[in-house]
């Protein structure tokens, strides 16, 4: 069961953070959250912070999957879980990238 978890965890976390940031956007646009901090628009700052956190989380997961003591004992599971770990990281970086450039509530 732990081995299965190792394989599934990174994409699962991707799904959670992806949905959460989409939810954050819904909240920002639905409630007209605006204003500025340090000259930047607050919605953009919130979204970019969340994006960065999501990436950090994936990097941490990948580190765990590569850690000699935390990785699986089965070579096969190590291999597959590291690929899915990379999938989580790439998917986070790629799919949430519009948080940095796209117009927010149009």
């Amino acid at each position: 069961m732990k081995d299965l978890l190792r394989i599934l965890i990174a994409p699962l976390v991707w799904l959670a953070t992806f949905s959460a940031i989409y939810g954050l956007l819904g909240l920002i646009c639905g409630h007209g959250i605006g204003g500025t901090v340090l000259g930047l628009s607050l919605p953009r700052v919130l979204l970019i912070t969340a994006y960065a956190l999501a990436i950090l989380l994936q990097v941490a997961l990948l580190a765990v999957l590569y850690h000699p003591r935390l990785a699986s004992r089965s070579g096969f599971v190590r291999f597959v879980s590291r690929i899915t770990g990379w999938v989580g990281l790439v998917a986070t970086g790629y799919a949430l990238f519009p948080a940095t450039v796209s117009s927010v509530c149009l």
Partner: protein
Amino acid sequence: MNALERHRRLTTIWASEPGMRGWVSTVNHTDLGRMFLFTAFVFFVIGGLLAMLIRAQLATPHSAFAGPEIYNQIFTMHGTIMMFLFAIPSFEGLAIYLLPKILGTRDLAFPRLTAYGYWCYVFGGAMLLVSMLLGIAPDGGWFIYPPLSGAIHSPGINIDFWLIGITFVEISAIAAAVEITVSILKYRAPGMSLEKMPIFAWYALITALMILTGFPPLILESVLLELERAFGLPFFQAELGGDSLLWQHLFWLFGHPEVYIIFLPAAGVISTVLPVMCRTTLLGYGWIVAAAVALAFLSFGLWVHHMFTTGIPHMGLAFFSAASTLVAVPTGVQIFAWIGTMWKGRPELHLPMLHILGFFCTFVIGGLTGVMVAVVPFDWQAHDTAFITAHLHYVLFGGFVFPILAGVYYWLPHVTGQRRFFRLGELAFALVFLGFHVTFLAMHWVGLMGQRRRIPTYAPEDGWTAINLISSIGSFVLAIGLAMIVIDVVLHALIAARGKRNPWGAGTSEWAMMTPPPAYNFASLPHVDSRAPLAADPNLAVRLARGEGYLATPRKGWRETLSVDIATGRPEMHVIYPANTRLPVTMSAVTGLFFLSLLVKFYWTVPLALAGVVILAWKWVWGLGCKEDLGALRVREGVTLPNAATAERSPGWWGTLFLLTANATFFGSLLFGFAFLWTVAPGWPPPAWFAGSMVTAGVGCLGALLGPVAMRQAIRANRRGDTPLPGIVLVLIGALGVAIACTAMMLQTPAPMGHAYGATLLVLGGYGLFHAVLGVLMAVFLTARVLSGFTSPARWAEFPIVCLWIDYLSIVSLLILLAGHLPGLLS
């Protein structure tokens, strides 16, 4: 004991009853797999006939063949049947037939559940067919968007047939998914570690996990919409605090993964059949497993791409556009790994291989147009046009029907033990391939020329006439091809030309048995140390028949098998299966009575049916287990194993865990719906918030916290040899506390018919109450089991199962009480 005598004795133990009686009482996976597949293909034919009617209607402009009222029913039923009554059940059927054989064991984890799922599917499907025969079939499209499908705009019974019939059928999907998941994880041949699992099992495992998490949102929203239609709880009515977009979110949260739930098993068939056709092994096994996992997860993050035109902010669309393009990458990995496999081997053009080539040609086009519609601006034009109709047929026919036909031709010799006599299949393939592309290739174009989906007719000056006529002609060629395949298969079954045992020279263990397969699959269970045990040891079938494996000696008339450790495949437990019984068919009939009563609004039979289900479920679980300790059982020379009744994590525990996974997704979707309405829906805040009383909330919280503690106390007492009854009584009291709090919430919620807020709290409270009642019933059941001597300090497997439910009850009831009181406290 020689091989023949072993065969005789095992057959007596495992065989179904003869004749028609066997059909209703069988719990054998080979029987049920065949029945599932047969029924699914019957629905495929019905869905195909409906498609012919659609094409007949659209063949010429100003067609008067069917009016819009009938036409709307036809295309709604075509989509519904193909998705819910053909595609998913045929995966279930294939997996049910194949998995135990390919995993080197004797049956699936819960044989009676297989049968229950099958009968739910048959009865639910029959309900939808009846609606069609009476001309009152669902007519809101297979996605039945409210408010069009709400009581105001669709007052008839049509939509109720969809909501209730499909929910009934989905019971079988959930049942099969739990079954398949536990079977793959726990019921494999000894020695088969995760990395030695045949690739089909990986695909089936991932698909089953996706069903467990993909279908609950659909079931939830069907329940909500039916509550709105029947009792006026306004979940989807904007003017009363509901939101029609909530339906779309939940529907596509199910609907997109559904596409991959359909594609992944087909990919599993290709990954199994293709290497055999190429005389080689699969290239990049580990990569393919990782790609399938990636595909599964990514597919849950795409749902909004069906909603690009609903006015969601562009950044939101961009997220989902990015994820939708990304999903093509793991698909690409699989496609190129398969082509690499062909380069590695020597492809031979047998009939299954033709269908696989058909798959490549068709599915690649479907994938490419899929990438196109993932690009937001293009989708703004293409959405809801014939372009999408064409695209989805390329994906589903290419990605499912061709591979399944490859699978049918590949495994037919296994099912019948015969070989093909007439060479009809090649011609049939050519017709299907040509017919399909003639029908759908030009349909992309007519979509770009502005032809919308689902229109009943069009005018000559619209400029769509020629393409539609070509499509219709192609569709009839396609239909003739498919009919020829049916004839070919029937002839194959009827004409007895004895086939070889392993006609394709495959390496997986389903071919290491006589064909047609005996009821017990393997006379003795193999020890597996490779992904292709039959390639490693061509003599495997004979050795197993001779009894050179596990459980070679039948004992006490038990249907015996082994369960293994998930990761390593080390044998772990000895399992005794239940034998033939009519309990599943009876229980699904009573379940059907429940749904039917709701459908025709005959509410006084609802509690009767519910009571019937409870009584039968009680009987179901009561029939398992025994009143004395079995001790360690010898399963092979020098190997003894404990019985599953002594395990902390018995098969029942695993089944419960995955059922609760689906249940938790259902509950999570409900909480999501609440949060969505609260933050996004127009018409909020509601006129009044739920105040609640501290007393009932406190009782509920205490009850929720008491349950898990008391249950653990009961387990410890039982293990020590003391009586667990005081602990169980406390569990019961805890569940009653939760029931009181949830009932109070349901009674005091403000105006459930006046605003979606009150309606949501009512459902949340109802969900909590349902689980509290379940907790009470389980505590009572456990008490009865303890008193009747079914448990002992060693035989304690039932305690951890009840413990899981009580823990779940505790968590959800705390969340429900929090969700119920939070908005009132915040304001």
